[in-house]
């Protein structure tokens, strides 16, 4: 049913339709509305056979989900940024134990400096943890990916992170089609675990595994992620049959067939990029976009096929591995490595800490990539004056401590004292 609804509330409704059995809630901006929405549905009696637990930290949130999942219940939680890091140990534990927990990540920058706005650094921090990571382009896709996530998680015995841009998607109110309970029940069967905590068939789960077996366990986890490469498109196709919409999958292309330049990006910025591409196409520029939905497992082959025929690839991403560069650009580069004539790769980092990514800036960036390509990482809309001044100052006078505060000291010096 079509509703004009806030992204987080739509997600809450979708998750409720998946019949979760244990939900753990700990507040952190910008995901809080999702768990609040679910809490309301449980208390109102609309979401039945579900335990809603207010936990005392994110570490507890995922730990409770681990216990519930190991005991055979469909478990869900949500977090962002600092919260994801606080539960980092449990994140690795959940995937190592093969537990099909679904978790929403309301993508938010990681501090210091503390920042509540959107970027992808939180998802990037856990990209090696053995979870599936799916990025929603729109709120509709966010709704749909949660439903697909439970099915993927339980089929693979592997936890899934559904990444949703904080504020931009979570707090936007738009037209979303919420499926019916019948549709979801037809697509997502009840959770039926093979190994579970049950007095009728006691099993010990979570033993220490030494050097003689650890490598094999990790190999099989890696292998499972690659199985996901097949399953993700399969379940997306099945979803399209049941719900009548193409969402999910590994990646999708937009106006890419004859493109000389292909942009690669994830999440909500793809909408703005599509508008920019349409404008450039009107000027006769052959440019297109590849939207990556599944970041983990990384769709190496699918991406290579999508990018093979183009001349320039511009990666636009909302995170940076300080000291080396954009993580997405790095993974894209790895995918292109063995092509006989690989396209030129241009890496740009944008939207950090919630800075708006505008069509105007994207126009400039894409044009620059073809006429004045840069080395390394391009920081979109960087305030070069502020940065230049700080670098100049540090050459003369090294000061310890946080850069953000050091910049302010310098700015304060240049402001004349108040008149009164």
């Amino acid at each position, binding site marked *: 049913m079509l509703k004009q609804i806030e992204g987080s509330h739509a997600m809450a409704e979708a998750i409720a339709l998946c019949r979760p059995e244990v939900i753990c809630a700990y507040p952190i901006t910008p995901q809080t509305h999702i768990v609040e929405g679910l809490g309301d549905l449980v208390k109102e009696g609309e979401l039945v056979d579900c335990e809603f637990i207010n936990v*005392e930290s994110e570490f507890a949130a995922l730990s409770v989900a681990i216990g*519930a999942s*190991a005991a055979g219940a469909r478990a869900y939680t949500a977090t962002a940024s600092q919260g994801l890091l606080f539960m980092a140990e449990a994140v690795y*534990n959940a995937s190592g134990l093969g537990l099909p927990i679904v978790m929403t990540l309301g993508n938010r920058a990681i501090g210091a400096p503390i920042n509540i706005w959107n970027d992808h650094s939180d998802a990037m921090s856990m990209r090696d943890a053995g979870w599936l990571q799916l990025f929603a382009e729109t709120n509709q896709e966010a709704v749909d990916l949660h439903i697909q996530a439970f099915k993927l998680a339980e089929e693979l015995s592997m936890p899934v992170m559904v990444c949703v841009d904080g504020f931009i998607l979570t707090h936007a109110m738009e037209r979303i089609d919420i499926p019916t309970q019948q549709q979801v029940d037809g697509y997502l069967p009840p959770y039926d675990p093979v190994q579970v905590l049950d*007095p009728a068939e006691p099993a010990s789960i979570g033993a220490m595994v*030494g050097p003689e*077996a650890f490598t094999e366990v990790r190999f099989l986890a890696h292998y499972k992620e690659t199985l996901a490469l097949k399953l993700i498109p399969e379940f997306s196709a099945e979803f399209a049959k049941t719900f009548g919409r193409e969402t999910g999958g590994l990646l999708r292309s937009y106006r890419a067939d004859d493109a000389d330049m292909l942009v690669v990006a994830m999440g909500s910025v793809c909408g703005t990029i599509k508008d920019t591409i349409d404008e450039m196409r009107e000027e006769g520029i052959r440019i297109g976009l590849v939207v990556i939905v599944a970041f983990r497992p990384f769709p190496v082959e699918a991406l290579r096929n999508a990018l093979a025929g183009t001349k320039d690839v511009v990666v636009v991403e909302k995170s940076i591995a300080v000291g080396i560069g954009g993580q997405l650009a790095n993974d894209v580069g790895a995918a292109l490595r063995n092509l006989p004539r690989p396209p030129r790769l241009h890496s740009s980092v944008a939207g950090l800490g919630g800075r708006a990514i505008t069509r105007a800036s994207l126009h400039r960036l894409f044009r620059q990539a073809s006429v004045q390509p840069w080395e390394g990482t391009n920081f979109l809309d960087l305030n070069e004056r502020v940065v230049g001044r700080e670098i100049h100052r540090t050459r003369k006078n090294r000061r310890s401590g946080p850069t953000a505060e050091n910049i302010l000291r310098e700015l304060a010096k240049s402001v004349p004292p108040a008149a009164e």
Partner: protein
Amino acid sequence: MIDPAAAIAPEEGVQKLKYYQKGTFTVGNRLVAEEQRTVQASQARSNALTCGHRACQGCGEALGARYAIDAAMRATNNNLIAVNATGCLEVFTTPYPETSWQLPWLHSLFGNAAAVATGVAAAMRVKKRPEVRVIAQGGDGGTTDIGFQCLSGMFERNDDVLYICYDNEGYMNTGVQRSSATPPTARTATTPVLGVEPGNVFGTGKSVPKIAVAHNIPYVATATVADLHDLERKVTKAMSIHGARYIQISVPCPLGWGSASHDTIRLARLAVECGLYPIFQAEHGKVTKVRKIRRPVPVQDYLKLQRRFAHLFKGGIEDPRVARLQAICDAHIAEYGLVDATGKEG
């Protein structure tokens, strides 16, 4: 059906049985009626922690866990799930690919046993299996320090979990480091016998049983491996209650304490009898029962059997801090009323 708790702890009007016999520590099972014997005395006990594990000779934790879990298994008709924190117990019971656990058992992380147990309990509720109960267990490190946040959260929510802490007063599995349960003056790898105040210092540490009582949870108790009947009674009673419960068991560690492997039970008894380890029960924030000390012993009798306190008696000279330890014992005795004024056994 016989209520195990009542059978083992007969109410007034029935002659109370005394198990103390001079010169021996026989528990006296064969002298009492069958229904008053311990769980361990029965051939039908679940052996939930069965033999073949890799614990040290004389490990108090292995003993305590076996006693506690078998009692809980009987009390729940074998409908029990255990969640274990990282630590000695987890490591020596599950040397992959073997396990010595004969009940469903999950190890997640060091600091989250209480939270994971909450999750398991929630799953049993939602699956409409109220007969299946949940125990979380860990050592003092995983409970009083790194596991404290999750423990307090579980208490505060009154989740239906019994948390059992096996207190050997240090991080033993990683090589005997100090925890907030380590007593003052004790030698550990991180409180070495060096400098002005050798060993662990005074003015630190916390009593998690007291903190548990302050959470007003339905049941809190301390126990030791020296008194099997008492321990089994407490676990059984705990399993008859729903909500957050906490039992802390003193479990001497021969390796970490530097004691003889055959002294484990004796040390646990001495810790109680000198007053250093008060044994009590509390319900909803109030202490309801204490285990009186029949005849208090000086703290030296306890300390001298352990090399971790050897520096207090070096060269035959007693360190003045021994008197401070005695003062702690005396304070416990006063606070909990562990010794009757007349000196008679309570």
